[in-house]
């Protein structure tokens, strides 16, 4: 019995349609685990803490965006080694005594479940004189001198987060320091007292304490309830590697603290979710999120803002390189951005500024 071409094609069309939808049904139900991989769930139990208070010593890394960007462009662009960029240190009207450099640094007061406490210095800023004034304002100079600070958690090697190291070591030359894998030799040389004339950065107080280099690809347990993850990010001005801190506050959840979040906020939150127990819901995030640091905007940032609510974040204590424009858009989208007080040369109240504090727990 012969089959005509037309009848065959009709059968083919009916069968094709039926086959397509039948396979859709089967793969969505009976065989779904084979085709759609389950999202990994973090199982690393880092323990718990009672609370952490974050004091924003300084979040004003520089005072004039245009001047900073101009410095980088004149030197050859964003890929130029930060140690050979002649940064502007005078004649800046809104600067600190005419200097465009400021710095990012925070102090973490951690209280553990047994009532004991630790202080962690989170980054050490840029301008030595500015950082010294900020440390004195918050009493951090005395804390350092009295060895009350347990560690410097250095998120990454960027000029505005690390080049204020001289001010820290002036008060406490043997402070233990944790750095991410990726630190360049210049960074270690600065720690040992080297001077970089072009960039005008120096350290007259060679470090005498322990330096721990934290590898990427794993969760580092720092204290019970406190951990860090290092990312192998390649960052502008020839910097590599950034680490973020994660604290598990009892009855609240995970608090993620970043310096600049160059690895990207979604990448960071996904990594926390996939590695750390309880990461399905992030309670809070604090620090720079590097979305619009120069107050520019790209439509992809709108997607970032849309993606954030999925993590269930209840407190967004973001600042610094997050950008005021991002904060405005986040607030408009209903995200819980913590307001600041715009003191000590912080420009707007849109987010936490210099001298502001936030407590988790």
């Amino acid at each position: 019995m012969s089959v005509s071409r037309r009848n065959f094609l009709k059968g083919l069309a009916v069968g094709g349609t039926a086959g397509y939808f039948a396979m859709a049904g089967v793969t969505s139900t009976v065989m779904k685990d084979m085709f759609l991989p389950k999202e990994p769930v973090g199982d690393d139990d880092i323990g718990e803490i009672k609370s952490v208070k974050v004091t924003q010593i300084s979040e004003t890394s520089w005072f004039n965006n245009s001047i900073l960007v101009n410095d980088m462009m004149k030197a050859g662009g964003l890929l130029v080694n930060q140690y050979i960029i002649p940064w502007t240190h005078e004649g800046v009207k809104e600067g600190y005594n005419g200097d465009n450099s400021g710095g990012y640094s925070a102090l973490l007061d951690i209280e553990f479940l047994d009532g004991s406490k630790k202080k962690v210095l989170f980054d050490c800023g840029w301008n030595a004189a500015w950082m010294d004034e900020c440390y004195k304002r918050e009493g951090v100079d005395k804390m350092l001198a009295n060895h009350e600070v347990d560690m410097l958690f250095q998120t990454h090697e960027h000029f505005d987060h690390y080049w204020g190291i001289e001010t820290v070591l002036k008060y406490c030359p043997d402070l233990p320091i944790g750095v991410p894998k990726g630190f360049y030799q210049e960074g270690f040389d600065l720690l040992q007292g080297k001077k970089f004339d072009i960039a005008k950065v120096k350290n007259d107080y060679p470090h005498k304490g322990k330096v721990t280099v934290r590898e990427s690809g794993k969760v580092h347990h720092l204290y019970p309830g406190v951990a860090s993850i290092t990312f192998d990010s390649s960052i502008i001005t020839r910097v590599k590697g950034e680490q973020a801190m994660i604290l598990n506050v009892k009855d609240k959840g995970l608090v993620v603290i970043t310096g600049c979040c160059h690895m990207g906020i979604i990448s960071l939150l996904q990594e926390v979710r996939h590695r750390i127990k309880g990461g399905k819901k992030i309670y809070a995030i604090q620090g720079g999120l590097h979305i619009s640091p120069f107050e520019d905007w790209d439509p992809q940032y709108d997607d970032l803002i849309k993606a954030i609510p999925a993590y269930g974040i209840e407190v967004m204590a973001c600042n610094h390189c997050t950008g005021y424009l991002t904060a405005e858009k986040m607030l408009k989208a209903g995200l819980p951005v913590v307001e600041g007080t715009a003191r000590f040369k912080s420009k707007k109240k849109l987010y936490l500024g210099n001298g502001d504090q936030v407590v988790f727990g």
Partner: protein
Amino acid sequence: MNDTTVVQENEENKFSWSGFIVGLIVGGALFLLTIQIVKALMFSLTAA
């Protein structure tokens, strides 16, 4: 002379089961291809 009745089957509306079975397989394979493409796009890592 005997008259022989010739019955001719009307082929015009006959359903082709062979075509149907081939279609089932092709349709199913097409869907699997679609899902592989969607999976690759959904789970590709992009830095935020």
